[in-house]
């Protein structure tokens, strides 16, 4: 535990030093990166030890004015600190490689980056509600300052404000939740939450408050509206950390709360499963209509949150039904998906950053053909795109496979609710998988393949090797996570059994084996198939390519001068999908109609802002805004009247106190 705290201190102090040396960009970046990597390594050692051994570190008790507060690192917190450690360090390397492009002062930026990483590590280690909320708040505020870094852009300011408002609305829910828990047991300690039993109604209230509060961070369906804009306007490495690590803290919180409540109710499981399904499907059909590279990736974070939530919901239901092997598949699958998603999403966001530096735009309509000028980024992004679509032999497939396996087991159970759950999991994940494949084949194809759609004459340039290094490491992580998945499942099993045992579900070796064996076979089969593909491809291109010609133009029905303008664009690619789901997406259409026999001008463009933002939040906030207009009379700027308000309120309180006494 001391080592973990030292790591947090190293990162925080490194951040402070980087701020102080902000004038000297290189030094500041070196200190910031160094402290993130050093601190990350320091924190990794105790986390890995706990995951390997399954124990927990001795507690450290802080004597705060509010009472004693415990810091503890157990398997669950160690597991959730892994994405923070890896993505924090890797994104810091990327940030260091790209920060000399930045016209802004970087010192404060580094400080908040380090603070974000430190607060997330502190969050995982706090076993006390007050410490947890403090860390949660610091995390949100640090993230706010990172998003608003480019504050000369109005959209970035708006994005950051909506993030701040959303995360505080969520935090309000968490405050109430912890208040309910602590009045119930008279202490803020997590350990006492677990010991004290709660009535079924209180437990449900606590759970749904937690789902609301943490749902804001993970991007649960109606609470996600801050997400696309914030991820799009933050810098690439910040989005990588926000999406890969910070949103996972929401799941950490949710899992913790599930551990506080010994008796689960089936309604929670259904809420998670259906919430996850709707989140996933909504996210992807909106993602397919987006034209901003980073917004597409942001919506995909939401989709993956949906998948993890479906897994958690299935685990809760399996716990209620007392089917350990089903609970195991679902819980281990969603935990593994947390790691897998962090690796893929980090890679994709860093790749999108490389594309932005290369081309100067995030618009899909202005890209194309980048694979020729940015081969490394194309390779990395392509692997990330295939991986996040859940395709074999990459890592997300393994975790989605486990959640699918949970669905198959539910189908075998045979009771009506189990069949319904199986339907949600199998058909839902099938649809989500298909749409994710559509989203990422579209994104990869539009950005890297075909001919360039840009009218700029500047050649896009590949990023330097330092910026490519974290991406290469993440690609390696993707391969290791899929190839070694049977071994990675051993510590994940430990974490899962710790979570499940809190609610009285005990995994047997049999239930674990039932699920790990198919994963092993799958990993092996896909590995050998990809080996065959590589081998055969080499044989084909080395020995059987006599007379191959590669200089013809693309066949276009005899049209011999194809250029980039005849290609499918992002609007046209997503048109069939938008058509099918037009009741949900509702894209705006802009452009001039084709008119006359020899039309000279014609254009078409679609634009699909988030439907919930447009049809729910905008009218709602407009209504609140109008309702609050009369109150502005109270805010007139006259100081003596303000003091009068204070005096009146104090007087009322005094009278109340006297009367009450």
């Amino acid at each position, binding site marked *: 535990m001391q080592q973990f705290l030292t790591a947090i201190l190293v990162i925080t102090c490194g951040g402070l030093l980087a701020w102080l040396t902000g004038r000297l960009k290189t030094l500041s970046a070196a200190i910031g990166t160094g402290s993130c990597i050093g601190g990350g390594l320091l924190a990794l050692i105790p986390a890995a030890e706990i995951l390997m051994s399954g124990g927990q570190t001795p507690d450290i008790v802080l004597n705060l004015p509010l009472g004693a507060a415990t810091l503890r690192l157990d398997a669950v917190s160690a597991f959730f600190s892994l994405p923070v450690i890896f993505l924090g360090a890797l994104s810091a390397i990327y940030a260091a490689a790209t920060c000399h492009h930045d016209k802004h002062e970087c010192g404060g930026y580094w400080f908040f980056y380090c603070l974000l990483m430190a607060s997330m590590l502190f969050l995982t280690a706090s076993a006390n509600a007050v410490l947890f909320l403090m860390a949660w708040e610091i995390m949100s505020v640090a993230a706010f300052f990172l998003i608003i870094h480019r504050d000369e852009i109005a959209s970035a300011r708006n994005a950051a404000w909506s993030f701040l408002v959303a995360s505080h609305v969520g935090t309000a829910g968490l405050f109430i939740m912890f208040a309910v828990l602590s009045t119930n047991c008279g202490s803020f300690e997590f350990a006492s939450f677990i010991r004290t039993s709660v009535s079924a109604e209180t437990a449900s209230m606590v759970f749904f408050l937690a789902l609301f509060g943490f749902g804001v961070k993970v991007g649960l369906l109606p609470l996600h509206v801050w997400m696309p804009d914030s991820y799009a306007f933050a810098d690439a490495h910040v989005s990588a950390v926000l999406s890969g690590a910070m949103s996972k803290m929401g799941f950490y919180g949710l899992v913790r709360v599930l551990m506080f409540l010994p008796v689960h109710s089936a309604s929670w499981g259904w809420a998670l499963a259906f919430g996850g399904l709707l989140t996933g499907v909504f996210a992807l059909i909106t993602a397919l209509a987006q034209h901003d590279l980073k917004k597409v990736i942001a919506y995909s974070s939401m989709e993956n949150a949906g998948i993890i939530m479906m897994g958690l919901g299935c685990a809760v239901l399996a716990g209620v039904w007392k089917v350990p092997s089903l609970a195991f598949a679902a819980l281990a699958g969603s935990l593994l998906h947390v790691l897998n998603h962090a690796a893929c999403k980090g890679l994709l966001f860093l790749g999108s950053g490389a594309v932005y530096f290369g081309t100067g735009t995030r618009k899909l309509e202005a890209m194309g053909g980048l694979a020729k000028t940015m081969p490394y980024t194309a390779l990395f992004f392509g692997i990330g795109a295939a991986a996040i679509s859940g395709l074999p032999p990459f890592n997300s497939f393994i975790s989605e496979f486990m959640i699918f396996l949970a669905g198959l087991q539910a*189908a*075998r159970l045979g009771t009506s609710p189990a069949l319904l759950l199986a339907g949600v999991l199998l*058909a839902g994940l099938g649809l989500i*998988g298909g749409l994710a*494949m559509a989203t990422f084949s579209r994104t*990869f194809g539009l950005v890297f*393949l075909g001919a360039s759609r840009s009218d700029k004459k500047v050649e896009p340039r590949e990023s330097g090797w330092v910026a490519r290094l974290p991406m290469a490491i993440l690609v390696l992580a993707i391969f290791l996570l899929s190839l070694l998945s049977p071994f990675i499942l051993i510590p994940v099993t430990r974490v899962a059994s710790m979570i499940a045992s809190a609610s009285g579900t005990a995994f047997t070796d049999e239930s674990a084996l039932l699920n790990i064996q198919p994963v092993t076979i799958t990993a092996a*089969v896909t590995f050998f198939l990809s080996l065959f593909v590589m081998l055969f491809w080499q044989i084909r291109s080395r020995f059987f390519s006599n007379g191959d010609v590669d*200089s013809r133009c693309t066949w276009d029905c005899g049209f011999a001068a194809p250029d980039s303008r005849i290609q499918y664009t992002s609007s046209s690619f997503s048109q069939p*999908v938008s058509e099918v789901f037009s009741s949900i997406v509702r894209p705006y259409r802009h452009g001039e109609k084709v008119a006359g026999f020899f039309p000279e001008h014609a254009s078409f463009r679609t634009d699909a802002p988030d439907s919930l933002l447009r049809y729910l939040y905008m009218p709602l906030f407009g209504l609140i805004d109008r309702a609050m207009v009369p109150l502005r009379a109270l805010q007139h700027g006259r100081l003596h009247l303000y003091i009068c308000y204070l005096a009146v309120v104090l007087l009322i309180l005094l009278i109340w106190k006297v009367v009450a006494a």
Partner: protein
Amino acid sequence: MISIHSVGFFIFTLLLAPILPGIINKVKAFFGGKMGPPVMQLYYDVAKLMRKSATYSQTSTLVTRLAPVVIFFSTLGAALLIPSFFREACCRFAGDVILMAYLFGIGRFFMVIAAMDRGSAFEGMGASREVLYSALAEPAFFCGLLVLINETGDMSLSGIFSGLSVELWRQNPAIMLLIAVSWMIVLLTENARIPVDDPNTHLELTMIHEVMILDYSSKDLGMIEYASALKLWLFSSLLVGLTITAGAVPSYLHIPVFLFGMFMVAVIIGCVESTIARLRLIHIPKFIVGSGALAIIALILKIAGN
């Protein structure tokens, strides 16, 4: 797990797969009052393509060259998992069906990005339609599957299909029929057949599958054509396993009855293609979602019946 004595059937499958499109074309020729190409036409085509050298677009990258290999091997991998001739598949384990669906998925992913690789006006069209239709077909397949898992109590494809019997059809005729029809629609969708896609259309604007491989030639095209035929065979064998059922056939008749079943599937596809026209593009999603609805009705019947 791995069953060695099924390897013979696997090789048999690989050898016979290209014959199905031949039978379909013969049926269509019969309806058109023509002789039609020989049943073995696809063998000749693939053999000829294998001898030719390839032409690539100058816009294309490595993706175009890698895709045929991925498509070929992913289909081959799926063939390892799918039981045929009413016997076990070469490789069986709990959840192999998921791997099968996603192996087809990775093949499709490469087909789509390869189509976008050439920067053609038409190939993007095909890609955009393909991804939507296949995503919509996925829930139909899985819903039907989970009812079958529930009926047979096994989580591997081989286990499910060896557990099917005439008894099952007699007990739940409605459910089984709904699944069979919905899987037939999935088969037509996944294999780019009429009424979803017309393999013989002469207008690139209206194609889906064929337009995505417009730019392929020689060995690459041969591999893709072969993989498509194999995919058709695999989906048909799922349908045959579902309708004729392993329990109904004595083991010495497995091979002839299975081959007869495959022949019948090809004839049905040929009849469908000869008698109805391709749907308009805007109606295709409704058709595919309809298959999902059938499978969901089957699931609801099953839940209500419990």
